[in-house]
């Protein structure tokens, strides 16, 4: 536990070491927040409800999801893949520590940094300009829990697609593909609620819905009581399942490296 905490602190510091990258990123998220909010408001000029979202829900979704982009690190993360490719992974294997545990702890230190410095500023700006919805205290609490689980689910998925670098020399295609999949199926591109029912249900059931749409739904009060517990349980399930799959992949990869060489 102490070790994980120490690693997490370094995860925070590693990103805190580049404040201007944070400023530039937060600026970009803000611009996209305005862009998407105005597009969605244009949609709502002709109707009042899309898939259970009214205009205020939709605009809140925009600012929340923009704020969550870096917290859950939805776009390409390749730190691990690069370490595998340039061979640094062998130095990781020379340490008495499971690499997945290391990277998870590191990511859980990174996420709060991005939440506070990449997420919060655009959201506050959005809240000043637009009329947003705010959660009840209970939902706010559930949102924090759900967002934490979303980080783990996202990490679990990122760890797996990064591990592809053990087998493929050029892993960039896979990373791009994985990013596209998660952006589309998580509700990052458009709210899952805007999709046809069958596709929407599929997205919710897959791990990706747990990454963006589920925390947003909880914030907006769309999940109460048993339904709330249900979606949290599903997030927990995916978090555990993806970590377990990642561990299996890592074990196979290690065996491959160890037997066949890097």
């Amino acid at each position, binding site marked *: 536990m*102490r*070790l994980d905490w*120490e*690693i997490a602190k*370094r995860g925070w*510091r*590693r990103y805190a*070491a*580049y404040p201007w990258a944070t400023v530039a990123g937060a600026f970009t998220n803000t611009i996209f927040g305005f862009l998407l909010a105005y597009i969605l408001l244009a949609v709502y000029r002709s109707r009042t409800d899309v898939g259970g979202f009214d205009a205020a829900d939709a605009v809140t979704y925009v600012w929340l999801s923009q704020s969550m982009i870096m917290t859950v690190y939805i776009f390409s993360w390749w730190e691990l893949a690069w370490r595998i490719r340039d*061979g*640094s992974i*062998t*130095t990781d*294997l*020379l*340490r*008495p*520590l499971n690499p997945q545990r290391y990277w998870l702890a590191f990511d859980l230190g990174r996420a709060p940094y991005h939440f506070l410095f990449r997420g919060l500023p655009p959201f506050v700006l959005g809240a000043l300009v637009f009329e947003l919805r705010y959660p009840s205290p209970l939902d706010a609490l559930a949102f924090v829990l759900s967002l934490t689980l979303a980080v783990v689910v996202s990490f679990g998925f990122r760890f797996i697609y990064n591990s592809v670098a053990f087998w493929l020399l050029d892993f960039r295609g896979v990373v791009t593909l994985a990013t596209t999949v998660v952006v589309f199926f998580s509700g990052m591109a458009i709210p899952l609620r805007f999709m046809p029912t069958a596709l929407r249900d599929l997205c919710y059931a897959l791990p990706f819905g747990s990454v963006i749409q589920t925390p947003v739904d909880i914030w907006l009060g769309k999940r109460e009581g048993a339904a709330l517990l249900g979606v949290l349980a599903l997030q927990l399930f995916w978090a555990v399942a993806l970590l377990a799959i990642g561990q299996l992949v890592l074990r196979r990869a290690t065996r491959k*490296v*160890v*037997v*066949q*060489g890097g």
Partner: protein
Amino acid sequence: MIEVEDLRKEFVVRRGRLRRERHVVHAVDGISFHVDRGELLGYLGPNGAGKSTTIKMLTGILVPTAGRISVAGLEPSRKRIELARRIGAMFGQRIQLWWDLPLRDSFDLLRHIYRIPADRHRVNLARFRDVLELDPFLDTPVRQLSLGQRIRGELTAAMLHSPELLFLDEPTIGLDVVAKQRVRDFLVEINREDGVTVMLTTHDLGDIERLCNRLLVIDHGTLIWDGGIPELKERYGGERTLVIDLEEPAPPLEVEGAVVERVDGPRQWLRFRGSASELTARVARAARLVDLQVAEPDIEEIVRRIYASPEKVSDTNGV
């Protein structure tokens, strides 16, 4: 400390797209050696000779195809994590420190990763700070360190958990003379004072000559030398060079027992075996000498000769 018996590693390389041709590479082809606690051992060989493959097998990140290895009493590939706590490794061209963080952070994190007791960590770090003079850049992010500073940081990182055995791969590569000397002094100190066994892989023969009391030379996956450096010189360095300065430029001298290798104005280089004084006397009879000196072959030259010699010295193994 290290026991290696008939160690082999084969890689299967596939070539071609349609008719996949399997091609077996014998990276390490049956080597055996034994290292005692407290040795400072050089491991030398040209690129692709099998050095790194051996080190990877010794540290447990590569499984041998055949043969037996025991390091600190453990079988490396089966007990990788357990072994990791007892050995240190540093690869001069790999970065083990945390790139974006101050050097101090890496040391702090390693304390937790290796579960080093706080007081021992403090003592060790204080010592390395002193010996390797780390203080001026302890709070600098690793990415801003000079190569020499970073290497000193890497050495500290490899040694913080008091390993019994240290693997170093090209620890002085790219360092200037002063930095090189500092690293060498440090290695001698930890070897002599702490009894740390050191296995040093390098292309830098200066490292070998100044540090090691024993040398392993590998080529094409087999050990071609295992023994001391003086013995190596005796066996391969039998030929020396007599450099003479004549009064005036002359054609290559014809002297019994020597071959002129080079002529540059009044200066000539004579390769010879045996006694230098006898040759000098013969030379003095044949020409008017102004000055002379005898050049011992350096280890670089010797190693070049070993690599080049066709019969190799497989019969000198098992020393």
